[in-house]
């Protein structure tokens, strides 16, 4: 794997984008999208995190292994949260207390 040095310009572009997204996330918080509030806020957070991961942390030019590590960590978060919520969202499934 050869060393890749990211350009200054890209770093500043990302920095600008992150600032804009931060303002955006505060701005949209003033509006009520109902059930979509969480989705919007999390979507912006995910976008920001992706920029940091891809450019600041250099995953864009990293080995496939590094990319796999990042994806794997996210997948395991999904396993943990998803299966736990499977319980919480289906409490009372049978219409019997505690079932």
């Amino acid at each position: 794997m050869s060393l890749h040095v990211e350009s200054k310009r890209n770093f500043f572009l990302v920095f600008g984008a992150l600032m804009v997204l931060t303002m955006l996330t505060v701005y949209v918080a003033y509006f009520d999208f109902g059930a979509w509030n969480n989705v919007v806020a999390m979507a912006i957070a995910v976008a920001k995190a992706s920029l940091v991961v891809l450019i600041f942390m250099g995953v864009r030019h990293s080995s496939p292994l590094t990319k796999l590590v990042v994806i794997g960590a996210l997948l395991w978060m999904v396993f943990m949260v998803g299966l736990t919520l499977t319980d919480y969202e289906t409490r009372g499934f049978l219409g019997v207390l505690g079932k």
Partner: protein
Amino acid sequence: MSSTTAESAIAPPKVHYLNAEHGLKSWLLTKDHKRIAILYLISVSIFFLVGGLFAGLIRLELLTPQGDLVSGDTYNRLFTLHGVIMIFFFLIPAIPAVLGNFLVPIMIGAKDLAFPKLNLGSWYVYNIAGLLGIYAMIKGGVDTGWTFYAPFSTTYSNSYVVPTALAGFVAGFSSIMTGLNFIVTIHRMRAPGMTWFRMPLMLWSSYATSLIILLGTPVLAITLLLLILERTLHIGIFDPKLGGDPVLFQHLFWFYSHPAVYIMILPAMGVISELIAAFSRKRVFGYKFVAFASLAIAVLGFLVWGHHMFTSGQSVYAATVFSVLTMLVAIPSAIKVFNWTATLHRGAISYDTPMLYALGFLGLFTIGGLTGVMLGTLGIDIHVHDTYFVVAHFHYIMVGGTILGYLGGLHYWWPKMTGRLYNRFWSQVSAITIFVGFNLTFFPQFILGFQGMPRRYWSYPPEFQVLNVLSTAGATVLGVGLLLPLFYFAASLGKKGRVAGPNPWGAIGLEWTTTSPPPTYNFEETPVVTHEAYAYEELHPEPTQKEPYLA
């Protein structure tokens, strides 16, 4: 990799890792993975003896239905400490930190693990955790069970929960350090020619184990941290009186602690693959299937934790989902057992001690695995959950699987680690005694559980006594069997111990191409790998012992 000839010097090298440096400091500050393995061997052995002592007291108390030997509170502390010590301080570190530490770099032809200082650090962290556990034990023990269920642990228990939970928390860091080291080492440090599919299966299972350690242990850490916070600051997280949900604790706890079962058994599976190949002098049947089964277990193992919670008040729907996923995780384990059995077919099988352990493993793990699938079946689990059926099941996996795997591995690589051979006869006696004693101890517990005897009971209805007496008798036999190796291993290091030579078994693997004991950097020069693992036909190794220590 070149085969050694029978005439090659059997005498150990003048300088090897054990005598390269002298003095206590050279051990306590060592960065050599092999020396760290020896340090770990000493530490886990001590904890194993302590945990075993508690087990003995438990069995002694259960000889009679009345709670007469110790008080209820003492009994609760005994089984809690037995569980905490055996799980966090023996079963989890035993194979990775002792055998894995010694072998992973040698098996891939590297000089050391990728992060030697981190490796030494993990041993210190392990011992700090151990001291915390011992502190709690001396101060008066802990009575929550190793599962630390809230709100009993956070609010009601009057025992040393915080130092014990802290011990589990800290011990987690030591296994993370080991797991991280293994993954990086296996990815980045393989010798030229050592492709993924040329790796011994021990490495595949070490790799899969390390993945689980990295992904699971942090969740245990945060769970124990939250438990400590709730207990010390009385803030509401799990206790319903403070607004929390105790079932959430169970979700978080088992998200780690079910995969932790695979942290304990996967390395043993790796050892068994090595043993069966070496003592059948044969390729492992279906190498790739066995290798991928390890990874499949690592992944699927994370999706089944809810099967510990079928009666917990979890939703019926979630229980059903967890049950079907549990059925799936049984398949890769079954595949391994079938492939090991098929490996024996047309092998050149020897009755050496490590092989006896491997066969014991096959039998006991099969029973443990099958009863595990039974427990994953909802209709049965409702009845036998939290009974001795569960206790029997996981001892078949943990003792019958992990401990037999560990002992088998220790007997196989002992000549490599020390350069000496132990007494063949006594080691075979020990292996058979352990197998018999184990079955006598734990098989009756299946019946007890089906009859409905709950676990963690200090006194029990009189109709359960006969089976409990059988179990205690078995435990005595098992205890004797487990103590025997101490003596013949110690004797092998003395003046009468026979010199092993580089490859006493005539086995294949990079570790058998270097001297016994190996030099500090493992190999005189970096080996170049030209064949797949277990290529007996192509390499045809000559054992350095013609008749390995036949009496």
